[in-house]
């Protein structure tokens, strides 16, 4: 018996003075130490208590019963639970509210069963069983809290710690490390190992993931993540026994848009974030639960800040949107929030240079110019990152000035804002998992919406769904058939002349995803008409299934269309004399007349600023509260995590102030009031965290006489890592684009 065990035994037996030995019920959900060996029969009789308090599944988990008849009952520590047949013992424990310690098991990866930390005792089984890999059988009596289970785990822990360095004080994982946590429960305070600890050469996985491979405990979570979720077979296990290493064999960067997630799934500090290395300790950070707006997925994130600075971004669970992953762009763009920020209102002088002015002066000038210009020559452009409130305010302001030329970049000049089903993802992101055939039209989900791509990949892997792709040559991490590059292919599929049409026809739940890049095409209506014909011929839209989807590109697009940001004339930029850019950097201003007056309101000195006459500094999405709607029509809210820089203000406040100075005061002066205004236009935007499906299907759309053109589809996103003002300002993203883009 080890010294540590002996010591704890002594301590524990002294603590038994306070225990009464009668039937006590201990229901601690977490990893707990057990009553010691001598007490075993007392605890066994204790668990048979009749009036057991109800227990909740770990983390409030919901249990998915694919087939309600197939429920079985097992007993976890004497507590009966109903679980669907086929679940593992570990999952049964989870349903019973007992969190089993684990290293290799991850609920979203395949089961490896190689760490042995999850050992539990099962009645009538001679040895402890690895609960993660053992299917639960009806009537099984699982004991998670017995001396045998505890001793087994202590043994596993001792072996793991044998070769684990004593790095915790300098390890970035320290404080949020599973090994650290579990060694508090099962570790001994001294080891019996007297040899040298092994050491492993660190691997270079690229600019995002830092490796300290000596810390690795060979759980293979990262290997499974890379091959199952990310779809890059880069990582692997080399060697055997104590020579076992995780690596890429030949030095290779991990080129996946999801590589950052291995940082989270690594239970120890072997894989940590390179940009975050030694920047902060996680207990100093304040977490703000917010959402990501750098693409249209609206991944749920937690913004960790220290003082006035965003230190890192980590994912937050949302089964419907991003599960537990986020893309590398979401995770690492945050350093862009500190660079190139606009912090004072500025005015371009006659010499072409900007000089800082006060808010009062800046607003007065803008208001004055705005009044001198004919209403139809005023144009407003909402940027990619605009929230619903500010778009509402901008639209109201422009309408009060008499102009109706307002649009959101990325939506094109003829957006279809009438039928909501024509611009959102009707299937829903999690709904994609039910599909068995995909037709991707002009969209490269891998770069446009990495989380949606992860879902498609998951589906393809699980059900062998067929994927057909029409568009420019692109990178996919699952099997697909490249059907063609231009819309003519669509017509062929619609008319049933194409070999892929039979695949669609035979599919039970076919899904068609049209990229938002199509919005900018001349023949957009014809493309959508062709897609609809395909849909009609293949039963894509049924009462119980809607497989017609549009995959949007930017966080603001869906809300903008919901709010009716549609320009009155498509030539409005050409004839504009006054352009209000609200964070719009990617709208083409080449055709803008030279004498036009441009106001740029935004948070970064990006492309929009080059042409601006006045700059009004606004706050970024990490600094304000704003509603964003994602591509599947789910409205979510960002919460402020850090203060704004300099003199910047929230977008809607700037517009509200400008309206006052211009003498056309908007009738709201608080977020609550502006949201009631939104309620009159698009009430679905206020149903937060709840997907609002479109009510009418696209079949109501009028006939289109337009013909599809021969022009091939073009990629909508040139560089995955740099799509908007924040990511373009980020140094990490610049490194990534230099190193990781193939």
């Amino acid at each position, binding site marked *: 018996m080890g010294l540590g065990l002996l010591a*704890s035994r002594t*301590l*524990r037996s002294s*603590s038994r003075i*306070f225990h009464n030995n009668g039937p006590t*019920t*201990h229901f*601690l*959900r*977490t990893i*707990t130490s057990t009553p010691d060996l001598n007490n075993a029969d007392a605890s066994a009789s204790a668990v048979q208590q009749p009036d057991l308090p109800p227990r909740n599944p770990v*983390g*409030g*988990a919901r*249990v*998915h019963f*694919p087939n309600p008849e197939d429920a079985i009952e097992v007993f976890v520590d004497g507590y009966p639970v109903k679980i*669907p047949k*086929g*679940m*593992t013992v570990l*999952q049964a424990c989870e349903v019973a509210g007992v*969190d089993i310690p*684990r290293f290799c098991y991850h*609920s979203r990866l*395949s*089961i490896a069963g190689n760490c042995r930390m999850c050992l539990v005792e099962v009645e009538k089984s001679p040895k402890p069983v690895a609960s993660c890999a*053992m*299917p639960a059988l009806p009537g099984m009596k699982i004991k998670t809290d017995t001396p045998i289970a505890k001793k087994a785990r202590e043994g596993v822990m001792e072996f793991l710690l044998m070769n684990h360095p004593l790095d915790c004080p300098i390890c970035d994982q320290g404080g*949020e*490390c*599973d090994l650290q*946590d579990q060694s508090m*429960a099962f570790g001994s305070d001294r080891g019996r190992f007297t040899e040298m600890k092994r050491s492993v050469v660190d691997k270079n996985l690229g600019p995002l993931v830092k490796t300290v491979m000596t810390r690795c405990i060979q759980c293979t979570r990262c290997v499974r993540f890379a091959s199952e979720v990310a779809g890059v077979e880069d990582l692997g296990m080399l060697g055997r026994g104590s020579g076992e290493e995780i690596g890429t064999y030949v030095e290779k960067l991990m080129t996946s848009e999801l590589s950052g997630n291995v940082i989270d*799934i*690594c*239970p120890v500090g072997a894989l940590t974030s390179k940009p975050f290395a030694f920047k902060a300790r996680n207990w100093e950070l304040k*977490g*703000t*639960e917010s959402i990501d707006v750098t693409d249209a997925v609206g991944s*749920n994130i937690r913004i960790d800040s*220290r*003082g*006035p600075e965003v230190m890192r971004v*980590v*994912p*937050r*669970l*949302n*089964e419907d949107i991003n599960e*537990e992953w986020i893309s590398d762009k979401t995770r690492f763009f945050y350093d862009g929030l500190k660079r190139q920020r606009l912090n004072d209102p500025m005015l371009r002088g006659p010499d072409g240079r900007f000089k800082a002015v006060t808010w009062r002066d800046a607003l007065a000038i803008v208001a004055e110019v705005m009044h001198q210009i004919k209403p139809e020559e005023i144009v407003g452009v909402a940027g990619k990152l605009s929230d619903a409130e500010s778009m509402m305010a901008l639209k109201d302001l422009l309408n009060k000035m008499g102009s109706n030329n307002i649009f959101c970049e990325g939506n094109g000049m003829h957006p279809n804002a009438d039928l909501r089903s024509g611009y959102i993802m009707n299937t829903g992101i999690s709904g994609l998992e039910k599909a068995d055939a995909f037709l991707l039209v002009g969209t490269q989900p891998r770069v446009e919406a990495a989380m949606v791509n992860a879902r498609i990949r998951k589906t393809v892997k699980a059900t062998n769904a067929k994927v057909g792709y029409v568009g420019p040559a692109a990178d996919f991490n699952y099997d697909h058939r490249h059907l063609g590059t231009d819309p003519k292919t669509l017509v062929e599929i619609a008319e049933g002349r194409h070999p892929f049409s039979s695949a669609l026809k035979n599919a039970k739940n076919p899904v068609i995803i049209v990229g938002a890049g199509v919005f900018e095409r001349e023949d957009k209506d014809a493309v959508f008409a062709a897609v609809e014909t395909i849909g009609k011929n293949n039963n894509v839209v049924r009462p119980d299934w809607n497989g017609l989807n549009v995959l949007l590109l930017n966080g603001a697009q869906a809300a903008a269309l919901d709010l009716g940001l549609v320009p009155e004339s498509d030539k409005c930029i050409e004839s504009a004399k006054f352009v209000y850019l609200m964070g719009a950097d990617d709208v083409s201003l080449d055709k803008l007349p030279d004498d036009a007056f441009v106001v740029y309101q935004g948070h970064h000195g990006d492309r929009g600023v080059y042409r601006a006459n006045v700059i009004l500094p606004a706050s970024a999405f990490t*600094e304000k*509260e704003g509603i964003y709607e994602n591509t599947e029509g789910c409205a979510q*809210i960002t919460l*402020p*995590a*850090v*203060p*704004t820089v300099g003199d910047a203000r929230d977008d809607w406040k700037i517009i509200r102030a400008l309206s006052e100075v211009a003498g056309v005061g908007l009738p709201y002066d608080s977020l609550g009031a502006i949201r009631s205004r939104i309620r009159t236009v698009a009430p679905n935007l206020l149903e*937060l965290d709840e997907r609002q499906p479109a009510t009418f299907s696209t079949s109501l759309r009028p006939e289109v006489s337009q013909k599809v053109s021969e022009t091939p589809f073009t990629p909508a996103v040139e560089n995955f890592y740099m799509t908007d003002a924040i990511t373009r300002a980020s140094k990490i993203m610049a490194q990534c684009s230099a190193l990781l883009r193939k």
Partner: protein
Amino acid sequence: MASSLRRIATHSPQAAAWRSSLTPICRQFASDALVEIKPGEIGMVSGIPDEHLRRRVVIFSPARTASQQGSGKVGKWKINFMSTQKWENPLMGWTSTGDPYANVGDSALCFESEEAAKAFAEKHGWEYTVKKRHTPLLKIKSYADNFKWKGPPKTAE
């Protein structure tokens, strides 16, 4: 060791008896003796500056840390004061704040249920919104899936 001590504290009958003998006294002072508290009153009588009586807060249930398995802190409810009045103090580089609630929400207020958090916010007269809690979905997983036949091998393209 710590956990067995904790167990004593929470589960030993002595402690329970002590607590139960104390509870009626507390009750009496808390609810029976005083008149009913109207929304916002607690805030007014507790000397909180006027500008902080009307605050917008968000009630939420923190998600599990993605990098940790432990669920001990999951399921609690917290109040986010959305306080951003912070700046770096030019003297030492430390963070200063102008908001008395800046550190209250994250570190000090923790509720067992959504209702408790709402009641607290109401008592203080804060205007609150509640964020939906996201919970995981447990689906059947099996070790045998690793060896499932997944169709004929794909030909490399």
